[in-house]
């Protein structure tokens, strides 16, 4: 644990705690409109700490809801990408030879594609729903994980304990999941922390364009979008969610970087 990790981790925990506890303490609710209190400046009067939006909804509660959803999407998407990436990478690495070559060639092909456009296409083609956003984001973030896991597996499978397992007649699937996967734990944790900010980025990008989370639900991307439309008269509507999003992303990136330096001396890729 170095200092950068402690600071960024502390800030993240603080924001997440505030996001889940804050709305419970506020007298306001995320979708209650109030036409007597449109576009109020941030102040402590009537508990509008972050002001109100153009419909008089409390921006503090909405921002905190945005953080909740952003974090939630990021975690679920990271789990999806983790499952796909580990299964794919471990299989390719363990099988080796031609199977490995074909599987990794496929990953290289996918790497070259501007994935976000396919996600948008997916959002256009199907009704936008939560689950689809999770899966779509997870489905585009597994490539890095697959590469890393494959590399690790390639070296693990030559080790004595794997050979011993093979000699005693353990099945291939069991070797991959029971003997190799647990040894990948450290690397996986590091890369999951680095996947989370990417997932947050994709989700907020989609919501910003109006293709993600739908009203009255909200996420930080959607709040930034609303802020852009009101920025001349009510700059806090832009600056508050923008700052929150920036700080969250920055902390995750710092944390992930520091973790990689601490646990994985091989550096990038």
């Amino acid at each position: 644990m170095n200092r950068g990790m402690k600071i960024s981790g502390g800030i993240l925990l603080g924001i997440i705690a505030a996001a889940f506890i804050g709305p419970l303490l506020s007298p306001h609710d995320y979708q209650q409109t109030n036409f007597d209190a449109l576009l109020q400046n941030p102040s402590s009067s009537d508990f509008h700490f972050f002001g109100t939006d153009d419909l008089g909804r409390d921006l503090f509660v909405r921002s905190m809801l945005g953080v909740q959803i952003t974090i939630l999407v990021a975690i679920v998407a990271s789990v999806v990408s983790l499952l796909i990436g580990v299964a794919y990478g471990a299989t390719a690495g363990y099988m080796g030879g031609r199977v490995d070559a074909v599987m990794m060639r496929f990953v290289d092909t996918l790497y070259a594609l501007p994935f976000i456009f396919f996600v948008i296409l997916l959002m256009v083609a199907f009704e936008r729903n939560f689950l689809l956003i999770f899966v779509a984001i997870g489905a585009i973030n597994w490539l890095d994980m697959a590469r890393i896991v494959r590399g690790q597996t390639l070296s693990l499978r030559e080790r004595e304990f794997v050979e011993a397992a093979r000699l005693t007649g353990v099945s291939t699937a069991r070797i991959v999941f029971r003997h190799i996967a647990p040894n990948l734990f450290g690397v996986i944790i590091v890369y999951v922390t680095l996947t989370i900010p990417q997932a947050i980025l994709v989700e907020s990008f989609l919501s910003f364009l109006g293709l993600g989370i739908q009203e009255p639900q909200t996420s930080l991307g959607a709040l930034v979008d609303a802020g852009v439309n009101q920025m001349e008269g009510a700059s806090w509507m832009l600056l508050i969610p923008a700052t929150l999003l920036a700080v969250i992303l920055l902390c995750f990136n710092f944390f992930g970087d520091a973790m990689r330096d601490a646990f994985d001396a091989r550096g990038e890729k």
Partner: protein
Amino acid sequence: MLRYALKRLLGAIPTLLLVIVLAFLMVHAAPGGPFDDQRVLPPETREALEAAYNLDAPLHEQFTNYLSGLLRGDMGPSYRYRDHTVSELIGNAFPVSLKLGAMAMLLAICIGVAAGTVAALRRNTLLDRTVMVFAMTGISIPVFVVAPVLVLLLAVKLQWLPAGWSGNEGLARFTLPVIALALPQIAYIARLTRASMIDVLASDFIRTARAQGLGTSAIVRYHALKPAMLPVLSYMGPAIAAILTGSVVVEEIFGIPGLGQFFVRGALNRDYTLVLGIVIFYATLVVLLNLVVDLLYGVIDPRIRHR
């Protein structure tokens, strides 16, 4: 070299085919047709519309029709901009986006490489740390946060630069969008350059050059820069994709009538043919530009060429 280029070009064909099939299937697997969310149409109008857009044919026939159209540069009519074909819309909008993207890329490479090199030469000084903190911030903060904040600061509050596209001329209207688009890439390239420059500067041939009495600036310029550029060059592929993605946001925020704006409008309006056409266009562009980057790699690094 030529053989290598041809081989890579042939290798790109399956990728593109995969893109087209994937995009086509996604659009056609959609529940409900493109005419569903308008007012209820009488059945015969509906059938006539579907026949006009060839939607009543079996799927594989629609696909072969679409593919043969693509090869002739015809992406079909737009569902929403009734008087235009998709190819026309792309043809009109793309030059604006191209200009924007090329300027951003150029700016990103120049400033990113310069900042990274300086940071590497002044390693572990205050200057280095400052550059790296800025770079980390630049990587973390998305374009759709940078762009509106820049507008708020430089256009609304300080009024130094125009915020909008229409009503302004020349470079002035490009300045803010290009900066917003380039910032994250500057940050990324600076980090890459610093890391690889530190590696290169520690290598034996640099020590030899220094022992022969060459000054730092000559060493960087004639010996270190080229090998240090290789990681930056291989980042160009992802950078191109990132700039395309970013331009979608930037065009939306600044009201630039480029391809990205059409893409978002098309997506929100469920203009299937337009969105499909633009996705295929973007993917082709990225695949081809990646190819160019790979070939450039061979030009700069002779070790790659003979593989």
